[in-house]
């Protein structure tokens, strides 16, 4: 475990000593701020309409905007989930591909470090950065709780917000796991990023893509789709199935990466 932590520290140090982490932070904050401001404007508009016409006379989908949690935060978590899909491949791409290209993989593989320690260390380092990126977005619910208000007294339903945020962290860790496995297969960082995105995007859209399919395929696709699992968590529902699903994908990714690293000994 000591070696895994040393590798994780090294990874974190490298992320923060290059512009990558800061570019990703800026992109995440910039794009999510744009959506936050838009959601806020929509929220205010719908609230205004409700004051004039009453909620009963507004279309049912406007019901979301009755409170800040459902009207802004839950929707924002969905948007950030999609942004993560684009951001994660850029964070995971270097994990193994760069080591192989720079010939530093030889250092790790000839040091008294076990393959699982290399995999775990790199994963922890990568997850640290993606969680730091996602961590920045907690500023949005905090802003709402400071400046917002509701009839019940508290601006936000914090249990929903927190669970949704935990779901996002789990989603980020999942994307990173898949990306790390892809990175272990190639020396090219760009190829690793592209392939990771090419795997994650259809997986995310699986539910929509399978809408026209017959049963049982539609149900199976629904269960296997990232978006189905993520949407329950982001709505603040503690769904054990979703937890098991994401943890299984992470574990499977780590096992596959371990096999790839181990395979070096058989090359």
């Amino acid at each position, binding site marked *: 475990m000591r070696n895994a932590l040393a590798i994780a520290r090294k990874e974190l*140090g490298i992320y923060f000593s290059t512009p990558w982490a800061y570019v990703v932070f800026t992109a995440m904050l910039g794009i999510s701020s744009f959506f936050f401001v838009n959601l806020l404007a929509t929220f205010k508009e719908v609230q205004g309409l409700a004051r004039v016409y009453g909620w009963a006379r507004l279309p049912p989908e406007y019901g979301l905007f009755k409170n800040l949690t459902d009207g802004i935060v839950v929707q924002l978590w969905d948007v950030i989930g999609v942004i993560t899909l684009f951001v994660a491949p850029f964070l995971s791409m270097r994990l193994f591909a760069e080591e192989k290209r720079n010939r530093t993989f030889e250092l790790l593989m000839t040091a008294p470090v076990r393959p699982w320690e290399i995999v775990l260390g790199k994963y922890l380092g990568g997850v640290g950065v993606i969680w730091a990126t996602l961590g920045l977005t907690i500023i949005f619910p905090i802003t709402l709780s400071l400046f917002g208000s509701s009839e019940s007294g508290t601006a936000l339903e914090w249990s929903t917000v927190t669970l949704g945020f935990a779901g996002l962290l789990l989603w980020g860790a999942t994307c990173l796991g898949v990306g790390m496995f892809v990175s272990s297969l190639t020396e090219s960082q760009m190829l690793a990023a592209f392939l990771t995105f090419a795997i994650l995007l259809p997986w995310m859209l699986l539910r929509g893509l399978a809408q026209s399919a017959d049963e049982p395929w539609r149900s199976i696709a629904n269960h296997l789709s990232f978006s189905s699992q993520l949407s329950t968590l982001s709505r603040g529902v503690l769904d054990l199935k979703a937890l098991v699903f994401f943890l299984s994908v992470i574990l499977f990714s780590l096992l596959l990466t371990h096999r790839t690293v181990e395979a070096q000994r058989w090359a």
Partner: protein
Amino acid sequence: MAMIEVTGLSKRYRDRIAVEDLTFGVPEGEILGFLGPNGAGKSTTMRILAGYLPASSGTVKVAGFDVFEEPYEVKRRIGYLPETPPLYPEMTVRGYLKFVASIKGVRRGQMAAELERVAHATGVADVLERLIQNLSKGYRQRVGVAQALLGNPPVLILDEPTEGLDPSQRAEVRQLIKGLAGQHTVILSTHILSEVTMTCERVLILNQGRMVAFDEIRNLAHALGQGDQTSLEDIFLKLTAA
């Protein structure tokens, strides 16, 4: 017992033979010159010895441990400098050496002293706080040698450690390697044959993946029917002219 025992070692890449039926041993404390023209199989052999590549057949034992059966035990006893020094350009020299020391099992309490020891031995003490990407090729090479020395491993496998160094730096590293004799077993690969003459008693010469010589330099000169004045370069050229 030999510190390094290689028996019937072969490495094939599909239809290409990189190393064929290599057998040799290196006793504890010896510095062995590992020579051969480019593509002779030196780096492949060293990578197998260091546990990075598997052999197609044959066995390698370091300190009695089989490199394939017990890689962890072997890696704990080896300091390895590959042909391209494995450096992280974004790290400082100190940060890099600290990282390597920690994955080599150097205890936290001994870390500072160990870093100081190898930094002084390899002449990188004055660049410890600099980023590796800003170092000259010579300094990078020395940082590569420094990482191999961390943890004071009993076996050192050095693939062209003086590559890119100027003559005075080369002399320093040569003195350093010479000073390792007795306590460390070293396999030294280099194209600078005068260095081998000054550092090693025995040499192993590979050509096209096969061992063409493994003996003391003067014995090789005699075996080739030439006198003591024959240079290692003459021997090398004669044995590898295939």
